[in-house]
């Protein structure tokens, strides 16, 4: 890793700050400046916190019913998760990013890796412009970390959040090699992208405690002991790009299937064929790893390099009221959402399907993770039965296609914000008073 002033190609990770809370705030400005938590639909646990809620030490994953009395006294506002809203805002942010790069990997609902080209100062200027656009166009605050590799970009991104003076943009190349080493030495090895707590524990006896230790470790030895994935992290920390944009990550926080076509497609029928294959492949991977998805994004794009036609990138997302691994449902949803977007006369050269917000199937089935104590967990099965009884099988409505009913979690109905961008009857209200 060396200080670079003529760097031509960098990787940036663009990450929305407290994404779920930020989405809620766009349509409800009264949440601005308050401690806000977003709760999971099923078990009522905290799954996202605003900065103010973090400052109050509201625990992530805490069951809401157990912390509600104290939280209420502290003025914490709780809202139920609104995956359709988050999915739509996520698709919008991905589309905005596609205006700044031709190489983009939507890594999760609130993070994208993009390629930036230019000198140190140029990439910082581009990142500032992206930040401005995200704030202005869709109201989301983002942080951007820039570095020669994904792993280092992730570290830079941490820095951009921790140091207010950076104003949300950190290019690791801005620092001298000594300073970079100091930064890496301040990061626990378990916090390095792709390492995790379990590997960190095994690394400790080898004297590897920080990101700097891992960077300076013997890559061959790491490879023998831990495998190729961890050895790659060593190289990545040294600034050797081993994880090109779009490569599927080992942790599988999401499943991504995308290809360029040999021949451009122009019709919905062709798109149906493509999506049929892609959704089935993605669903097969999903089942293989025993996960369910809650949110799917599909896109199709024209070539960014064709000179005549303006570059078009249609990106849609579908939220599933219940997590699923049903290939047929994924396919139908993909067609319903993406099909109408296709513009006549355009030549599409690429399409993709991303499954996000994955949950292990087992966990979802039993979901008594928090049921050990005396406190009674929410009656999960009963809730499902109630929904099925009330709305029938069609409760699994397709987000963008339009599920007219409000969700049936009567217990939390008051806390669900409107699906302001995907449902005509739930638009945000503006006062004319």
């Amino acid at each position: 890793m060396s200080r670079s002033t003529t760097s031509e190609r960098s990787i940036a990770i663009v990450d929305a700050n407290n994404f779920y809370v930020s989405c809620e705030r766009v349509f409800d400005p009264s949440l601005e400046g308050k401690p806000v938590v977003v709760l999971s639909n099923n078990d009522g646990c905290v799954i996202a916190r605003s900065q103010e809620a973090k400052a109050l030490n509201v625990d992530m994953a805490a069951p809401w019913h157990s912390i509600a009395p104290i939280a209420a006294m502290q003025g914490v506002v709780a809202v139920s998760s609104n995956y359709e809203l988050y999915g739509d805002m996520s698709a919008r942010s991905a589309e905005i990013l596609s205006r700044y790069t031709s190489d983009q990997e939507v890594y999760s609902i609130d993070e994208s890796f993009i390629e930036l080209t230019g000198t140190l100062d140029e990439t910082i200027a581009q990142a500032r412009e992206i930040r401005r656009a995200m704030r202005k166009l869709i109201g989301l605050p983002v942080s951007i970390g820039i570095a020669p590799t994904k792993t280092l970009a992730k570290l830079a991104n941490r820095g951009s959040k921790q140091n207010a003076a950076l104003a949300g943009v950190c290019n690791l190349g801005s620092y001298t090699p000594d300073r970079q080493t100091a930064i890496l030495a301040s990061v626990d090895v378990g916090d390095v992208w792709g390492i995790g707590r379990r590997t960190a524990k095994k690394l400790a006896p080898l004297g590897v405690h920080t990101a700097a230790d891992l960077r300076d470790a013997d890559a061959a030895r790491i490879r023998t002991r831990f495998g190729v994935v961890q050895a790659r992290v060593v190289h990545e920390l040294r600034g050797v790009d081993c994880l090109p944009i779009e490569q599927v990550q080992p942790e599988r926080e999401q499943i991504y299937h995308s290809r360029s076509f040999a021949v451009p497609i122009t019709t919905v029928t062709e798109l149906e064929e493509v999506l049929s294959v892609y959704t089935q492949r993605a669903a097969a991977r999903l089942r293989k790893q025993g996960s369910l998805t809650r949110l799917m994004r599909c896109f199709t794009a024209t070539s960014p390099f064709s000179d005549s036609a303006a570059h078009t990138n249609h990106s849609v997302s579908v939220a599933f009221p219940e997590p699923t691994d049903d290939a047929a449902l994924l396919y139908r949803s993909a067609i319903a959402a993406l099909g109408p977007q296709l513009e006549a006369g355009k030549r599409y050269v690429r399409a993709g399907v991303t499954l996000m917000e994955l949950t292990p199937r087992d966990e979802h089935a039993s979901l008594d993770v928090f049921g050990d104590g005396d406190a009674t967990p929410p009656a999960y099965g009963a809730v499902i039965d109630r929904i099925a009884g009330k709305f029938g099988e069609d409760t699994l409505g397709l987000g963008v296609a339009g599920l007219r009913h409000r969700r049936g979690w009567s217990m939390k109905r008051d806390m669900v914000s409107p699906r302001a961008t995907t449902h005509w009857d739930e638009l945000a209200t503006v006062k004319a008073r």
Partner: protein
Amino acid sequence: MTVVVGPVGGDERPDHLLPQQASEAVHAGFPSPAQGYYNGPVDLNRHLMRDPTATFLVRVSGDSMTGAGIFDGDELVVDRGLDAHDGNVVVAVVNAELTVKRLSYRQGQMVLSPENPAYPEIVLSELDEATIWGVVTRCLHRV
């Protein structure tokens, strides 16, 4: 952005005299066959939204903007990508609420005016916090 295309040089086909929406760059000279002049049926989405990614639909509650033709229950097309100028109808955040008003500047001060004499205008000094959420470009009113 809707681009109205007039006659294109070289070809005298009457099609070219009709204004049409072009979603791609238009070059003078003989048109490429791939460019095509049929863009499909008129598309309200394209007509109403300059930039769909930056466009949000909101519903009006109240009658303070009836003078501008905006009534209770109407839907507004709000473009966050546009810069708000003097005279624009805007959605602004006032007192932590989304509100629709006419924007003007008077002696350097931002003024948000209703268009109904029954309501007072809001003059914002530099100290007051008001942010423009987006510029209203269309009102969808049921007749």
